[in-house]
């Protein structure tokens, strides 16, 4: 065991069992998977992406590139989970990934021997030839060998949620700067949210042996966190990563609610938050960076800051004999801290020459690590001393400190470019990169604890001032003021062997040199050529090192070499969280008619029309194929009476003294002359002259109209009408509202429809309800509306009742229809009935057709202006050779027509150049006993009687057709007037 006898923010009284690669270990509450494994002496935690090199944990935070695990089993398994952030829970199952068959004996480590062939750009070079080998051989092998965790292949059963939060001040990060900012802003009365990705507030305060306000920094952090949690204007969100910064002070954040507990008891696993903040204080801290030297990726080689975190926060010794390699003063602190805890420090190697570390261990200044050795973990290292000699040092852990990179990622999310600071050899955020966001503390390059506290307080005070809130003057607690000196040192030069820059994507210093040699020198090119920084850690560990190597090769400074652009998310976000609430019915909500249950109870086959679910057909006993039901339902309507729920049609209630004038302007035809009790068919254009929609509008009272729209166009039409009323003619006194949901509407169609309604409605005579008449009716005491309109070409009515009576009316009407030899019909029959009659849907009105194309020039009033009138006069829209609506029916041996077929002349090749038009709607017509179709044909109106071909090359159907009038059934309209 590598656990110190005391210390750390863990509960030693409780032991939690968990398994890693099948072996059972124990952890304590407060442990991460990484700290628990280290405590149990497990150093080997993964295999690298490309070369399958053995890897151990490098960091103690969310920037971890190596220790990625599969957590959970089956559908609950989450791959690529960072062991450094995953809290251990009772019975947790963790597995290493990217190895076969086991972590210790990974056969694919043979890739490492092939590394001369797998270097930078290997995809682009090696597998170019022979071409057909790529898909068949190379790609499957590479895909099998390269890759990280595996997906279960099962649907994710976990719950995710989404939520919104609003605050005056959002503080990102709960280290010294964030805590001081929160304390100050909270005392001033601001409504604040403090978000931290960790499960304990405090940041580096929990990882160091230092004092704040005269007490241990861990205690100070805990006390401030408790104080904040008790304030009503503060919301402390732990386990919450702010992942992105967006316009208008909006931030995305993931809260991990259930990832750390065995049973979440119904709580969502994660919540995706959108936080809207008036002011934001970014106190995200900094991440330590490694130094590249040969074989710097052996398990046991870790960041010095991580070694201190494991020691102070988790009470874990990362090794028993530790060496330290540093280019800054933090390395000394690591050595001192470890020795104070009783760990042997076998060597302190400082790359700087002009320093004198005050540490009681073997010290090498002006020196560098030039190699490491050990099987599946470091056992020794070679040091090149200042005089050039090589010295061997034994160590089971090497703590490396290359300086710190401010965590400025969020400040790049809106295009901000960072500023280079030579004194700390790092980029810091440029001010105003994100509106109303201020960066403080280590994220701003201020690395001392005292400096962080001061900056956090200053930023909070500025926010309070902007918010016009109470100014407060809290005392800055006493704290360490050492900023720590650093001299840039990125990689050890003049060495043999591979020095790793990007641990996750297996990119070495040499790979950058190859990219440079092959002229991929811009940072963005270099990244893509080598894949550096393109793994799940987004280059948090590697970008700076690679930039430095490239800058040395090109002779430019680092800021001249450039910086890569950081994009959301800051750390990987699971699709489940991003898609919370938007899967399944959340993605496509269901709109159900009031007769939905009634229809399904009668065995109706349902079809989706937009979000609506409608009955397609109602099979009767003995019917096994949809066509049987459909044909019967069509005949029923033509010969007796049919009943159909048409509630999905859009219904817009329009009222006001200027309603008639308004309708005149939005319809092509005149409506202001429509009398109360009358319905008129109307055609609506877009301003560019194309058809927007059609439908009927009824005048049901003085200045009171009810417009119907096609089911799919309801939203766009409503929006268009609102636009016209508000933006074009605000002087018109007219208001409108959608009443689609409020009214159930049922069609009763067929020669016996009047007979059916006679028993329900007092006066259904042709005099009271002539064709295109409407009026109020009472149906069994319910106040409804009756419209004598027809979408089938038969004598027909539509009855509207308040939605709550829809189902019972449907049931009653169908009973009566069945008594008359009719019954209910669905969408398929409705479609056949309208095609037989030449009525249109959006299959025809596809946004590219004019009224003239559809043979409706007569509906374009010349007496008034209307939307689309002027544009429809454009020359091109009046070309007689435009595709025009016609009917088609087969005349040759082939009797089938397929929707979507293209039309060509009889002797022409069926190719694009010869296209004469296309088929929009087809059906088998039981009335005409054959297939019929609606089509658009060039100059079609003048080609009635001619022969043409409908060709479907995909389904290989080529049909000789006669061009006919689109009104196949009762073209004179005698039936619907009867």
């Amino acid at each position, binding site marked *: 065991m590598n656990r110190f006898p005391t210390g750390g923010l863990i509960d030693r009284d409780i032991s939690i069992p968990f398994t890693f690669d099948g072996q059972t270990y124990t952890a304590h509450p407060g442990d991460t998977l990484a700290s628990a494994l280290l405590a149990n002496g497990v150093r080997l935690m993964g295999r690298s992406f490309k070369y399958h090199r053995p890897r151990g944990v490098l960091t103690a935070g969310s920037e971890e590139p190596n220790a990625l695990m599969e957590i959970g089993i089956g559908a609950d398994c989450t791959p690529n989970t960072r062991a450094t952030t995953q809290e251990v829970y009772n019975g947790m199952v963790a597995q290493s990934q990217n190895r076969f068959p086991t972590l210790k004996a990974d056969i694919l480590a043979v890739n490492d021997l092939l590394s001369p062939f797998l270097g930078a750009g290997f995809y682009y070079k090696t597998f170019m030839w022979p071409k057909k080998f790529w898909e068949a051989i190379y790609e499957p092998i590479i895909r099998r060998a390269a890759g990280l965790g595996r997906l279960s292949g099962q649907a994710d059963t976990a719950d995710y949620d989404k939520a919104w939060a609003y605050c005056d001040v959002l503080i990102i990060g709960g280290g010294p700067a964030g805590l001081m900012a929160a304390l100050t802003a909270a005392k001033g009365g601001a409504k604040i949210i403090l978000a931290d990705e960790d499960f304990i507030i405090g940041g580096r305060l929990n990882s160091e042996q230092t004092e704040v306000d005269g007490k241990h920094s861990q205690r100070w952090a805990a006390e401030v966190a408790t104080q904040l949690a008790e304030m009503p204007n503060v919301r402390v969100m732990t386990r919450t990563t702010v992942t992105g910064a967006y316009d208008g002070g909006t931030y995305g954040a993931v809260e991990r609610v259930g990832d750390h507990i065995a049973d979440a008891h119904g709580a969502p696993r994660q919540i995706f938050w959108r936080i809207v903040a008036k002011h934001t204080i970014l106190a995200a801290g900094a991440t330590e960076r490694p130094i590249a030297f040969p074989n710097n990726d052996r398990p046991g080689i870790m960041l010095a800051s991580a070694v201190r975190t494991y020691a102070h926060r988790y009470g874990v010794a990362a090794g028993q004999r530790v060496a330290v390699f540093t280019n800054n003063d933090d390395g000394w602190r690591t050595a001192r801290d470890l020795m104070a805890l009783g760990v042997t420090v076998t060597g302190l190697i400082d790359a700087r020459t002009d320093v004198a570390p005050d540490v009681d261990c073997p010290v090498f200044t002006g020196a560098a690590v030039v190699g490491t050795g050990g099987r599946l973990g470091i056992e020794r290292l070679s040091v090149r001393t200042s005089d050039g000699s090589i010295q061997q040092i034994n160590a089971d852990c090497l703590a490396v400190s290359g300086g710190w990179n401010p965590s400025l990622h969020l400040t790049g999310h809106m295009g901000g470019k960072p500023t280079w600071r030579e004194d700390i050899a790092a980029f810091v955020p440029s001010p105003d990169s994100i509106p109303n966001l201020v960066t403080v503390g280590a994220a701003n390059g201020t690395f001392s604890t005292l400096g962080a506290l001061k900056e956090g307080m200053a930023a909070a005070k500025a926010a309070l001032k902007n918010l016009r809130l109470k100014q407060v003057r809290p005392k800055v607690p006493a704290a360490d003021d050492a900023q720590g000196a650093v001299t840039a040192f990125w990689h050890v030069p003049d060495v043999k062997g591979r020095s790793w820059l990007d641990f996750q994507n297996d990119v070495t210093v040499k790979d950058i040199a190859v990219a440079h040699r092959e002229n991929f020198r811009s940072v963005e090119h270099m990244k893509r050529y080598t894949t550096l920084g393109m793994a799940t850690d987004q280059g948090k560990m590697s970008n700076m090192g690679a930039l430095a190597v490239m800058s040395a090769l090109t002779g430019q400074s680092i800021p001249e070499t450039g910086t890569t652009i950081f994009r959301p998310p800051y750390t990987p976000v699971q699709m489940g969280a991003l898609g919370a609430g938007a899967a399944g019915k959340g993605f496509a909500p269901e709109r159900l008619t009031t007769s939905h249950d009634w229809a399904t109870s009668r065995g109706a086959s349902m079809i989706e029309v937009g979000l609506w679910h409608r009955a397609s057909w109602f099979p009767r006993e003995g019917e096994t194929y949809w066509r049987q039901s459909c044909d019967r339902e069509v005949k029923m309507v033509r010969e007796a009476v049919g009943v159909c729920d048409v509630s999905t049609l859009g219904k817009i209630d329009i009222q006001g003294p200027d309603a008639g004038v308004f309708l005149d302007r939005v319809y092509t035809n005149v409506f202001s002359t429509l009398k109360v009790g009358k319905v008129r068919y109307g055609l609506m254009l877009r301003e560019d002259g194309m058809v927007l929609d059609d439908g009927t509008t009824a005048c049901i009272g003085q200045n009171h109209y009810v417009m119907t729209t096609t089911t799919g166009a309801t939203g766009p039409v409503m929006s268009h009408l609102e636009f016209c009323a508000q*933006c074009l003619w*605000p002087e018109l006194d007219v208001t409108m509202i959608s009443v689609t949901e409020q009214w159930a509407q049922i069609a009763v169609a067929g020669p016996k429809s009047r007979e059916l309604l006679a028993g329900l409605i007092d006066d259904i005579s042709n005099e009271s309800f002539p064709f295109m008449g409407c009026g109020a009716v009472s149906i069994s005491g319910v106040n409804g509306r009756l419209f004598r309109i027809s979408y089938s070409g038969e004598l027909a009515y539509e009855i509207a009742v308040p939605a709550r009576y829809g189902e019972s009316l449907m049931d009653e009407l169908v009973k009566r229809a069945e008594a008359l030899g009719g019954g209910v019909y669905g969408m398929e029959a409705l479609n056949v009935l309208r095609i037989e009659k030449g009525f249109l849907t959006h299959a025809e009105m596809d946004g590219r057709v004019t009224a003239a194309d559809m043979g409706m020039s007569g509906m374009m009033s010349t007496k008034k202006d209307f939307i689309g009138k002027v544009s429809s006069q454009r020359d091109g829209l009046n070309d007689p050779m435009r595709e025009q609506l016609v009917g088609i029916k087969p005349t040759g041996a082939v009797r089938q027509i397929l929707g979507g077929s293209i039309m060509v002349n009889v002797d022409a090749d069926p190719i694009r150049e010869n296209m004469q038009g296309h088929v929009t709607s087809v059906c088998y017509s039981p009335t005409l006993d054959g297939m019929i179709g609606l089509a658009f044909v060039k100059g079609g109106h003048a080609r009635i009687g001619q022969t043409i071909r409908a060709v479907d090359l995909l389904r290989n159907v080529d049909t000789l057709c006669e061009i006919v009038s689109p009104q196949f059934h009762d073209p004179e309209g005698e039936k619907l007037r009867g």
Partner: protein
Amino acid sequence: MRISCPHCGERDHREFEYLGSAKLLERPDGGDRAAFHDYVFQRKNPTGENAELWQHVMGCSAWLHVVRNITTHEITAVKLARDVKAAAR
């Protein structure tokens, strides 16, 4: 992006639907085809501030006249399109 609806207050942009340039308010009177061609098809594509029309579809359904900086997405003014149109008359 946040848009302050004069009726409903500041809301997330996903409650709104974007239509296009506020030039759409200036529908020509009369039947001049050239004027309509310009109105229907011609748009400026300015860098910086642009007047646009948005509708609060998931709120009060008001059409809004929004002045937005296309480069920074900063919104400097929101008015009811109805009022802007009426004032222009």
